[in-house]
């Protein structure tokens, strides 16, 4: 019984290490490609547009509603504590430090990362990846680099937009409570919210973008040659990237927001 459990855990651990090794390898080839100038301009612009179109609306809605919920809670609690004039600041700290980066990462992982896994996976099944290689084109250069760069740029941008939308959402709920008037909410930001708080959140987002593109592309490029497995790779890409975003978030938070 116990031995069985230990074996199972050991196997999980080893498969995690091997997964980590393989994605790291892909990550190295990506950077080798980027540093040797093999990023295609046109395909990158295409990917940037695609990510923007796919995720902007849903990211905005997500952050707006979350901001409203946080704004509601904060104004009630702050009212009890008698610090209603600080609600705007509280909401913006919450959004910029955690909710903005993490929620946008989830949205992008679900919309964009999964699409990458599905697209590359079906290209693999239909031998299009082999066709690229036969045409002397490295699939990592042609397919992965533009997606990686697009995520690296777009996720932070979406987070920045999301932060603003979220804080505005908080405002909408906060002004409904009697103790907060229309100017005090935003007046609490200057002098309290530090630039670094926002910047560090955006930096976290850049790392999340890397994780999403890396995991999505890796799942697509390595899925087995069956339509069924394309489906599995797609789901796996979402699960893995969300898990890795959680873990990275913990590490990055302690580094970027020292006590």
């Amino acid at each position: 019984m116990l031995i069985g459990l230990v074996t199972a855990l050991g196997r999980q651990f080893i498969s995690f290490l091997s997964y980590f090794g393989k994605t790291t390898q892909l990550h190295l080839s990506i950077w080798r490609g980027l540093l040797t100038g093999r990023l295609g301009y046109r395909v990158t612009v295409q990917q940037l547009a695609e990510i923007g179109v796919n995720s902007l609306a849903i990211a905005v809605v997500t952050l707006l509603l979350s901001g409203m919920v946080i704004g509601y809670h904060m104004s009630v609690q702050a009212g009890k504590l008698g610090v209603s004039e600080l609600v705007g600041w509280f909401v913006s700290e919450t959004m910029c430090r955690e909710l903005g980066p993490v929620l946008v990462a989830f949205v992008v992982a679900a919309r964009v990362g999964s699409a990458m896994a599905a697209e590359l996976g079906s290209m693999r099944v239909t031998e299009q990846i082999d066709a690229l290689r036969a045409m002397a084109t490295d699939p990592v250069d042609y397919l992965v680099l533009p997606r990686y760069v697009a995520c690296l740029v777009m996720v932070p941008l979406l987070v920045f937009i999301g932060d603003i939308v979220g804080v505005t959402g908080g405002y909408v709920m906060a002004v409904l409570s009697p103790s907060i008037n229309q100017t005090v909410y935003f007046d609490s930001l200057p002098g309290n919210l530090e630039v670094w708080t926002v910047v560090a959140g955006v930096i976290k987002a850049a790392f999340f973008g890397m994780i999403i593109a890396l995991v999505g592309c890796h799942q697509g490029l390595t899925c087995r040659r069956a339509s069924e497995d394309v489906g599995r790779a797609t789901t796996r890409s979402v699960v893995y990237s969300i898990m890795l975003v959680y873990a990275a978030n913990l590490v990055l938070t302690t580094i970027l927001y020292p006590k």
Partner: protein
Amino acid sequence: MAESNRPIIRACDLVYRAEETAMADGREFQVILDGMSFEVHRGEVFGIMGMSGAGKTSVLRLLMGLVQPTSGDIEVLGRSIIGLPEYELNRIREQMGMCFQYAALLDSMTVADNVAFALRRRSHLSRQEIERKVEEHLERVGMSGTGNQMPAELSGGMKKRVGIARALITEPQVILYDEPSAGLDPIMASVIDNLIVGLRDEFGMTSVVVTHEVEELFGISDRVMMIYQGKVVACDTPEALRGTDNPYVQQFVRGQAHGPIAV
């Protein structure tokens, strides 16, 4: 002198096992090629025939460096391709072309973009120049005017011909055809056959043609190799193979259900 006599492709004792099937049917792996040696000379049409599942496609994938053999050596254009990193392989692949059995067109771009793909990435031709070459190559395979269509709008045989145009456009030294005329009507099939022979006569292009259509293959090939159970059964000129008393070849060429090849 030694340079021109040197075979353009040389395979030495190739063994290829598919590790992917491991444990699917109890066996550990399936032996697909089991010690295979052959040479392709510059400027010839080299035919490979064998039963369905004999490993013909696998041979082409090995020659292209898309998969690595379990053991053995492959030399292409005077260079061993075993264990080469992808970017080195790509330097050799630039001199080669491959037509996939199921065309493998990039389905998110138009026919014209597919055909132009390699030129756009590697040559410094102007846009008009590329457009002209694309149209010229589509015409060669009887597909002119289809440039703006998407691959999904084409029939299987049409896709295959676009795949041929795509492989030819860079004017490679060696071109590998995987069943170029399977699924084509007799007229189109003979257009493609003439194209293959024409490229050899006009430009000295080397072709490796895989098919199980014996008559077609004998019609265009300078030499034909037959593979069975992962080994080379015979490799000779079409005339010699017709007259051979090798029972495997005889059975295959005549298309008999009974003989040494068990079905």
